[in-house]
């Protein structure tokens, strides 16, 4: 095989790789678009008027997650499933945002932490790597931490909207989350940094609960906390 033939042959490989990346980029762009749409829907829960509409906003988001599943299904067709980590960087960012959005919807619906299994179901992907396009564990954790920060904002705005119970429930939830993370021996730099941010969220929410409690607006606090 001459050098020219060899390089022609190699160019074939490179072309395939570049096409795959181009295809992935395009699908990821549509995913980002949908993620932004869901975000816009969910951000309205911070409006004073938005609190009553939480259920309907969740429903709307759930609808949009159908679109997400279709787009991820499309994404999966763009590359051999066992090369997940080869192209991981392309969708990593948007997937973390989607985990956040899914976790936020689930929290608003049930006030519980979405499991990795549930997120996988909502996004239409696998839990276990061996089965195909899956939920990377660090991305799952990153998404959950983004939600924690959103919840501290929600606690503040709940009070503004006159809902004095929600902050107490958020406080308990975030504390539980914090304990969970403390079990982990994080090495990953960006995740570690995000986790440091959680401490501020915990503190912020505690201060909200404090403000309510000193004014006698949170009589339930103790009963909730001590159960």
């Amino acid at each position: 095989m001459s050098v020219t033939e060899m390089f022609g042959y190699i160019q074939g490989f490179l072309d395939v790789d570049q096409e795959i990346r181009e295809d992935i980029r395009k699908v990821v762009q549509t995913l980002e678009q949908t993620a932004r749409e869901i975000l816009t829907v969910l951000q309205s829960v911070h409006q004073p008027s938005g609190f009553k509409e939480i259920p309907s906003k969740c429903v709307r988001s759930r609808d949009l997650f159908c679109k997400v599943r279709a787009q991820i299904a499309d994404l999966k067709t763009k590359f051999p499933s066992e090369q997940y980590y080869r192209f991981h960087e392309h969708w990593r960012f948007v997937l973390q945002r989607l985990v956040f959005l899914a976790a936020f919807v689930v929290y608003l619906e049930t006030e519980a932490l979405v499991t990795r299994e549930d997120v996988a179901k909502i996004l239409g992907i696998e839990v276990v790597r061996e089965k195909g396009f899956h939920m990377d564990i660090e991305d799952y954790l990153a998404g959950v931490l983004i939600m924690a920060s959103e919840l501290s904002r929600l606690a503040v705005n709940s009070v503004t909207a006159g809902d004095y119970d929600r902050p107490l429930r958020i406080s308990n939830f975030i504390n539980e989350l914090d304990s969970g993370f403390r079990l982990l021996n994080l090495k990953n730099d960006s995740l570690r940094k995000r986790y440091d941010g959680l401490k501020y969220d915990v503190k912020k929410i505690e201060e909200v609960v404090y403000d309510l409690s000193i004014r006698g607006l949170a009589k339930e606090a103790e009963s909730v906390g001590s159960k």
Partner: protein
Amino acid sequence: ADTSRDVSVKSSSPVLAAFKVFQQELDTRHDKYERLVKLSRDVTIESKRSIFLLHRVTSVPNTEEILKEADLKLDGVRHKIGQIAEELMGEDIYQFHRAYTPGIQEYVEAVSFLHYIRHRRLISLEEINARLVFCSQGAADALSPGSQVLTFHVTPSDYLLGVADLTGELMRMCISSVGNGDIDTPFQLSQFLRQIHDGFSYIGNTGPYEVSKKLHTLRQSLAKVEDACYTLRVRGSEIPKHMLADVFSSRTTLIDPEEGVV
């Protein structure tokens, strides 16, 4: 002999003739760029001063006076932008965009701040551009009725970047309002800022790169404003009912938390 080689290049050489043309073309371009940078600096400084002036509205009784003064100041700025437009007449504006974009962004910030204070809403790109129509100076001399009209177009990116900075000023205004015992404004501002924040979230990373950088500051400003409203609400929750009428009659928004704010 040192310079002998070069003498062979005759000064009648067509290459040299061409490069003399290039020289002029490049110098003209750079000179124009430089003049635009200077105009932009002027626009920036005067716009900033207008913003400082506008912040005084939260502390004086006569708002309208300040608004008028600010408008007058901004007329001066617009005159400078007119000079920019003059420089750009017949040019591809994107060729010199980097020279004057800082000034224009600051102007958008100032003019949208003024607009918000007066109308409590976001000025549109069209409204901004509508006031950037000038008579070309050359034509103005002739005073002819058909004198040449110059228009300056703020680009959507510059508009966005100016509005992103506006949110910082709105946050400052919000905190000042609370300090001055004004309770309506913070809630209004938090609504407005939230809308702008949601707008920027919607645009996300499809906008210019600088926007993503400013998004973080925008989020912080929003958080400060939301915190201020939160504080107003919790402390308002303590107000004894019997004191409402006589003491803080104007603070209607706080009368009854159950009625909801907005």
